[in-house]
Each structure stands twice: as structure tokens, then as C-alpha cells.
């Protein structure tokens, strides 16, 4: 068993919102993340999946402390960093890095690539003066870019290349954990595969642990050993890749898998069972009582409105597979198995 690097316990992020002040003014909050817990082992990769607004990115931003959580713990190697002050946080920043979704807005257009990558090196005093360039070039080579291009500006690179620059910047400080927030969703498929393979190499060669945030179930299946499915600020199901994809228990996970357009349909594989959700995700300002998924769930009964289901191991589940549903039961025939 490898050691646990990062432990997140009951993490919450409530954003206060300004409402027009009337009589009986009440303070409202957006419950973006509401009690999320998971563990990340050294060198592992955990996928956070869900639709927009489910709180997956907010969770990523809290772990890297770009946001300060409203409540909960983020224990990194024994220290709770959830409420640390900026100064105390600095040594941890080096070990927890983030790669953003949009390679266009996450790089400063007025700085050369060399500058972008060497800034973290300087901030953390990681290289001697005069050796910066050598290190930058080494990093560029590591992510598959031409080291000669260190003097160029971001606009001279394509989307995929920019994403590589963002990855090189994160790698510069030799982190132990990288939070990858939709790292390939802005890229074309052929380029997406290049970047996915790069991330996989980094994970294998450097032993970096990943929290991989994505909405694309195919990408997550490809990259992650462990998967947590989020809905409206909560984890609804968590387990190993095989548990989640081959025997999903939560109705929402089942609906997600069923909705993913799949090439299997054309390759002569009989069409999978179709589950279609109705309606949209409810507002996180005033989430449904009890189970948050009940408004779109075909299994919902009275108990779902009154009693919130806990994320727990069900009698029928295999080890480590948890689901938050009163009526959880595995479905095995949702995706066409081609392998």
C-alpha cells in the first residue's frame, strides 16, 4: 500500500450571494461544494467527473488553495492546509500544482515562455542564477516542445502546445500532486490524445499523483484508477475505475454513462440500454431536500425527499465502492464492452 498523500474531509465551499435587500433580508449562499471527502495516494490518479456546476472545479481550486474552503479539512502529508495563511502555505504551493482548462487564458500573453516557466523556479528559489535557462529548456523538452522556442510568446503556439507550456510550468517546481482541471477539453481530438499520453508519461516516470477533473467519461476512464462522480456539490458514487464503469450503482452515474455518445454503437455492438434524464440540474442556491438528485431520478420515492442518503458501501458492492442512494443497485450492461 502506498502512502496517502492527500486527504480531503467534509470539504465545503459556500459562496455568499448578494440579493436585493428587502424586508426580512436573508443571506443566501451557493452551495458549490457541500461535504466532499476523498483520499489520494502517492502516484495515484483520481478522476472527479460531473456536469457543469457540480463543484468539481471548485474542489480542485480549494485543494490548491486558490480558494479558501468554508469548512472541512485538506490534509496534505499530515498538515491541514485548509485554513493556512498565505505565508505558511508557500511550501505547500510547491507540492500542489494545477493545470488549467483553457490554454489561451491561463498563460500571460506578454511574457515569454521562458519567463512563464522560470517564474515559479525563482519564487521557490529552486535554481541558481544562470542555470534557469537550462532548466527551462529541460522542462520544454520533457513536455515535448522544442527547447529552442523558449524565447517565444504564447500566441506563437497552438492550443495543444500551449497546454504543454502550462504543464511545464506546473512541473517546474517538482510537485507531488497535480490538479488537472479539464486539461484536454479545449483541444481537438488528435491533439487531445497527444496531451493525454504526455500526462500519462509524467505520472509513470515522475510518480506524480493526479486529481483529474473532467466531464468526458472516456478521458477519465482512460486516465484514472479511481473515480468520484459528483452531482450538485456532493460525491454520489466513488470507486475504482472498473467498479464505476462496469457496475455503476447510483442512478446518476448510470445516466451519465448511458448518455455518453459512444462509438461502440456503430461497431456492431448491440445498443446499450438508454437512460434519459429529464430536466436540468437544480440551482445550488436552494438544492432539493434529501437526495439532491431526486428531482431527476426515476427511482425517487418519498424517503428520498426526507432523508439524505449517505455515501456508503452497499451490501451488494465490492470493496471500496460507495454510493449515496437509497435504492442503489449495480447495472452491468450500460456500456458496450469492446475489449
Amino acid at each position, binding site marked *: 500500500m502506498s502512502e496517502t498523500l492527500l486527504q480531503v474531509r467534509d470539504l465545503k465551499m459556500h459562496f455568499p450571494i448578494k440579493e436585493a435587500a428587502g424586508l426580512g433580508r436573508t443571506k443566501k449562499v451557493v452551495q458549490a461544494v457541500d461535504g466532499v471527502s476523498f483520499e489520494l495516494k502517492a502516484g495515484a490518479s483520481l478522476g472527479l467527473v460531473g*456536469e*457543469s456546476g457540480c463543484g468539481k472545479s471548485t474542489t480542485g481550486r480549494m485543494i490548491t488553495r486558490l480558494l479558501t474552503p468554508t469548512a472541512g479539512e485538506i490534509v496534505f502529508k499530515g498538515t491541514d492546509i485548509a485554513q493556512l495563511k498565505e505565508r505558511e502555505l508557500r511550501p505547500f504551493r510547491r507540492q500542489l500544482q494545477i493545470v488549467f482548462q483553457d490554454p489561451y487564458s491561463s498563460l500571460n500573453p506578454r511574457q515569454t515562455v521562458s519567463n512563464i516557466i522560470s517564474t515559479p523556479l525563482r519564487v521557490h528559489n529552486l535554481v541558481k542564477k544562470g542555470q534557469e535557462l537550462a532548466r527551462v529548456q529541460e522542462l520544454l523538452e520533457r513536455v515535448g516542445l522544442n527547447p529552442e522556442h523558449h524565447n517565444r510568446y504564447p500566441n506563437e503556439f*497552438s492550443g*495543444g502546445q500551449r497546454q504543454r507550456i502550462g504543464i511545464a510550468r506546473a512541473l517546474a517546481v517538482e510537485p507531488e500532486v497535480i490538479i488537472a482541471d479539464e486539461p484536454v477539453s479545449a483541444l*481537438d*481530438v*488528435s*491533439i*487531445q*490524445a*497527444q496531451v*493525454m*499520453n504526455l500526462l*500519462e508519461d509524467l505520472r509513470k516516470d515522475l510518480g506524480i499523483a493526479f486529481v483529474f477533473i473532467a*466531464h*468526458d*467519461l*472516456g*478521458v477519465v*476512464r*482512460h*486516465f484514472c484508477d479511481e473515480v468520484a462522480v459528483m452531482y450538485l456539490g456532493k460525491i454520489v458514487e466513488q470507486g475504482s*475505475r472498473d467498479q464505476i*464503469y462496469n457496475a455503476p450503482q447510483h442512478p446518476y452515474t448510470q*445516466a*451519465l*454513462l*448511458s*448518455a*455518453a*455518445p*459512444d*462509438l*461502440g*454503437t*456503430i*461497431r*456492431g*455492438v448491440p445498443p446499450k440500454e438508454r437512460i*434519459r*434524464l*429529464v430536466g*436540468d*440540474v437544480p440551482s445550488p442556491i436552494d438544492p432539493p431536500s434529501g437526495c439532491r438528485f431526486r428531482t431527476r431520478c426515476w427511482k425517487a420515492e418519498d424517503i428520498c425527499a426526507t432523508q439524505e442518503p449517505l455515501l456508503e458501501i452497499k451490501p451488494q458492492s465490492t470493496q471500496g465502492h460507495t454510493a449515496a442512494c437509497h435504492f442503489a443497485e449495480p447495472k452491468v450492461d450500460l*456500456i*458496450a*464492452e*469492446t*475489449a
Partner: protein
Amino acid sequence: MAESAATPADATADAQRGPSVATRERRQGSINPSGETPYLVVEDLAVKFPTADGLVSAVNGLSYSVPLGRTLAIVGESGSGKSVSSMAVMGLHDRKRTRITGSIRLGGDELVGLPENELMKIRGDAMSMVFQDPQSSLHPLYTIGNQLVEAYRVHHKVSKDVAKKRSLEMLDLVGIPNPARRFSQYPHEFSGGMRQRAMIAMSLINDPKLVIADEPTTALDVTVQAQILDLLNNLQKEFGSAIVLITHDLGVVAEMADDVLVMYAGRCVEYGTAEDVLANPRMPYTWGLLESIPTVSAANERLRPIKGLPPSLLNLPQGCSFSARCPYVDRVKGELCTTQLPDLLPVDGAGAHTSRCHLHDKASIYETEIAPRLG
């Protein structure tokens, strides 16, 4: 440029104003994979933009056809010309900044070169478009109802009440709950999925025979995407319209398309029925696309990306545009791939499945090398 497209240029010239029925049938038969009489026929379409850096050839020698009741998916990456070609069909390019040649016929009527006022009568009526981002394609300052009524009254001389009745029907049809209340709401009061439904209602309000859907679900979440794709499928069954679906997502193609056209660097590189193109592809670029997608059903093995980047449209390479990224170039004798643009030819000597590639043994390469890896 050594341009040798599927249709000779002179054939297009005399096609400008109604070719004889016999020629039209022959030509259409030769380019439609289904064999049905097409409603939309695009022939040898080229779209070029003069820019300060030179002439950008966004679309070159593109030919396809779509019969009523059928869906053609145009697949390609950014910059492949899939959106540009469809905007040309809709006549949405700025005439002063675009050079469009070739032929686009809708129900037999030529659209290329049609004056703007004539085009206005067709656009939104016989053909309409669903855009990718319903947030930016609906007017934020008018209510949804207002916009629907306007779309209807532009093409029908009816009173506002009649138009409102029709609008409410359409909102109901696309599955928007409580149409009467939604009618008087503004776009920002709609969620992304509901907005796209409203957009679809607007594009279908005049009962168009051709609907062009440009990445209609790319901005949506996967469960909502499934709803919208089902909706498009059901509406097509009901109205029998021809759909051109533009997408980069091969999963969406697999669920929606009857025919598939793969574009690369402004050209069609493979064209056929969905089964032909997705289950028996005969072009290395299509293979590359299929191999680079991680699917929900595939086993966890290393992805095989296409190396490199697409060529610049300012300066297309001589020969096959894909040659610089193609792993099979050395299996073609001599330097054919880098010197001569391959024609779009039937993959098995006859038939409607065509691909643009010099490779001789495409079928056996696919069967022995690619298919086993795809599982």
C-alpha cells in the same frame, strides 16, 4: 495549385443555371451514398478568404448531397472547413471578403451567386441553422417569444396572434415545459439546454426542409446533450427534413448520422454511409481520429495520437494535405503522397464509399493493423 477535384470545373459552370434532368440525376447519383434523390447538393464548393497574409483556402472542391429525412455528419477538427462550408450553404459569409465558387443547389435551385434579397427568402424558411452557442445566438434584449414570432412573420404574412400560437406550439414540441410562461421570458432566464431547445424551435418554426446544426450540443452537458440529440432525431422523423450535422465528436456521429463526411484542411478526405466510414474507414486520417479517442467502452491502453499539427490553410502542401502527419506515406511508391493530391475515389473500385488516399491496400491495412487495435 494542382486541383483535381471529383467534379470537373466545367461541369460546375454549366450547372449554374439548371442542368438537364438527366445530367442532374446522374451527377447526384454518383455522389450520394444512399442512392436517394438528394435535396441539398453541394458540388465542387470552394471558399477562399483574401487576407493580409494571402489567400486562405478554407474549403476546396467539396461535394456532397443530402436527401430529405437523412442526416449527414460533417466531421473534422478546428480549421478543417466544416463550419465555413456550411455557412456558405446558408449564405452567411460576408460577400466582400469571401470568394465562393462551385455550386450549392437546394431542391434544384442554385444558391451560389443568388442576390441577398433572394437568399433572405430562403434562409430561415426552406433552410435554417442551429448554432453551437445558444447564449450568443439569441438576442439577449428580446423575449424568446418575440424572437420566435419575428422568425415566423418574416416568412408568413400572419397576425401576431397567429404567430404566437405557432410559437407556443413549437416551444411545446421541443419539450419546453410551460410554454406560455417561457414565451415571455428572456434568454438569460433559460438554462443552456432550454436555450438550445428554444433555438431549435426557432429554426424549425418555418418547417424547413434543410436544417444545418453546427455543433448543436458542444456547449451542453452530456445528459442534456443526449436529450437534444434525441430531440433532433425525433423531430427529423416527424418533419422529414434533411439535416447536416457539424461536429468534432465521433460519438455523436455514431448516434446520429446516416452519412459521414470527414474533412481535413478544407477537403473531403472520406465520404460514405456511417457504417462505411466508422466501421470500415479507408483513410489514414479517419483511422487516426478513431484511434485517438478514449471511449467509455474501450479498455485502458495507450492512445495513439496523430502526430504533428494540421497544415496552414494559407499555404497548403503539394500533394495530400495529410501527408506530413501520415504514418503510411512510406508505403506508397515514390513520392506520390507529397507531390500529387489524391483524388476522391471509390474505395472498392465502385460504390459510394469514397476516400482520398494513394494507399493501395487500405482495406487490408485496416483489417490487419487498425481494426484489432480498435477492439
